């Protein structure tokens, strides 16, 4: 399949995709920039190639496939479940190295059997790279945000803290700094910087805020409501008195240290929950189902390990994340992003899991072995 300078194994890869009951989709190279910026935040602008249409619409060269694949699905109003495959070039600005490279992958939308769909994404990715790099040893790292969230809930941490910690999950330095901050409580200047309104009577507080908004011309806009502000004000006042106590800190730190062969992870997690006196049952049951589903699909569990601190600090990732590497290079990355479809405008919640392969890195490894 001599297509431009696509990697020489592209033909085999596409055939493999077809064999996995996927439909291959074509995604235009030029995309509207807003969905990517909305999803990843304004900082992404430094890393994508943007341009403008004649009418001023912000456009970019596609920096990845997942968002356009999902948007295509929503636009076409297609039913679920659906398995899409893609292959092509993506464009990202980097300080060094090439800024265009090839990716291919599968997005699995709308399969309600979460454990089976998760397991299929991992085992598809692993068997595809194994076929492209026969005889290589791979490391598969799995993480699970749901388990982390369950630990936070079981520790009884307040919602405000939970949201902050979840937002930093996967970013070890940020998470560590945040945990340290929480042991100290809120800084003094936050406690009495302003004369605090009466927080006991929530309705009166909301009325007062609404009144001031009315007077100052802020009542008509679509920004934060009096309810939002009053709610967070009350929550904040409560948090200002709270501290992350030593025991909870130790439990969290111990949890984040867990790094263990996947086959041993269910019993290790159960042991951890028991010892810490935490009820993690629903999250651990889902975790165990996924491990069982992987075994069912004859995936090679011995290559897999679970690292509790592994996550991606993007708010649309919800559960599983995974990475496959060989010789220190990440060859595939994926995860579950159940929140993305509704963020992109789907009218109902659609579970979604997928992965993408770094074809250039796979190509380099193939080349170095010949």
């Amino acid at each position, binding site marked *: 399949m001599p297509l431009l300078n696509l990697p020489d194994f592209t033909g085999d890869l596409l055939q493999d995709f077809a064999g996995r009951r996927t439909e291959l989709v074509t995604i235009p190279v030029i995309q509207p920039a807003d969905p990517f910026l909305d999803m990843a*935040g*304004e900082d992404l*602008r430094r890393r994508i190639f943007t341009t403008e249409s004649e009418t001023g619409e912000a456009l970019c060269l596609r920096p990845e496939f997942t968002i356009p694949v999902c948007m295509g699905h929503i636009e076409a109003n297609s039913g679920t479940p659906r398995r899409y495959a893609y292959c092509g070039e993506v464009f990202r600005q980097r300080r060094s190295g090439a800024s265009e490279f090839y990716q291919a992958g599968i997005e699995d939308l709308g399969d309600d059997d979460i454990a089976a769909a998760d397991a299929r994404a991992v085992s598809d990715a692993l068997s595809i790279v194994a076929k492209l790099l026969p005889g290589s040893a791979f490391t598969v790292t799995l993480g699970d945000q749901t388990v982390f969230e369950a630990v936070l809930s079981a520790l009884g941490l307040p919602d405000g803290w939970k949201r902050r910690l979840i937002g930093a999950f996967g970013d070890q330095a940020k998470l560590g700094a945040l945990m340290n901050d929480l042991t100290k409580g809120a800084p003094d200047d*936050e406690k009495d*910087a302003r004369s605090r309104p009466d927080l006991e009577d929530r309705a009166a507080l909301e009325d007062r805020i609404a009144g001031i908004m009315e007077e*100052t011309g*802020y009542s008509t806009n679509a*920004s934060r409501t009096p309810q939002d502000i009053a709610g967070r004000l009350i929550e*904040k006042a409560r948090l200002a008195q709270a501290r992350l106590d030593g025991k909870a800190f130790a439990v969290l730190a111990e949890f984040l240290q867990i790094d263990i062969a996947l086959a041993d992870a269910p019993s290790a997690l159960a042991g951890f929950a028991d010892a810490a006196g935490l009820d993690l049952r629903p999250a651990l049951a889902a975790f165990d189902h996924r491990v069982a589903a992987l075994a069912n699909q004859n995936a090679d569990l011995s290559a897999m390990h679970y690292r509790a601190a592994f996550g991606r600090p993007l708010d649309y990732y919800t559960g599983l994340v995974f990475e496959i590497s060989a010789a220190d290079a990440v060859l595939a990355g994926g995860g579950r992003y159940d929140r993305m479809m509704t963020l992109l405008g789907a009218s109902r919640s659609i579970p979604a899991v997928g992965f993408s392969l770094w074809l250039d890195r796979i190509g380099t490894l193939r080349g170095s072995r010949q």
Partner: protein
Amino acid sequence: MTVTLALPSKGRMKDDAIALCARAGLTVTSVGNDRSYRGRVEERDDIEVAFLSASEIARELGSGGVDFGITGEDLVRETIADAERKIEICTRLGFGEADVVVAVPDIWLDVETMADLGDVAADFRHRHRRRLSIATKYWRLTREFFSAEHGIQLYRIVESLGATEGAPAAGQADIIVDITTTGSTLKANHLRVLNDGVILRSRACLVRSRSGGGAGASVDFIRQRFADAV
């Protein structure tokens, strides 16, 4: 070899810059009529003066189009990517004071710090089906401050080239990043600067472009005269 000194072409900044030049012993006159965009320095044929808008001066310094310029540090840091490598701030001058700040509606009683704003931003999409939006003309400074310094990623910038303070009340954005000198415009628009929301305390500066010659008698002369005058 001549060096080019760019001065602001209008307003208070122009008057202050020319007054400072005079204190530094550089008598600046316009070439031709008063409205001319070219000038010279009396008895220094090696110095050419270009009158440009303050933001153009920043751009020209970045590209090496002029050797020296007097302009606001805010514009230098905003306009020039990798500023440290491309320009050198020789002297901070005693005028053009303006702080680049993050300001929120005063009624956001719960938001006093950037950490508070981070919490609100993280939750915003879920509550309002869109990201927190920031009206500003300072794209680069905003991104560096929010993303790099405070780890806040989830926001969108709405470009605003004038009357930025009015954007939140008008519903065009939730908060702003803008310059303020006395704070009175912010106050009039019921906005409040966050406790740790000062991005940059900007002053007018004498700035040298690193892509020019750099050495030479004329360069040393300008650098020295302004350093002595402040």
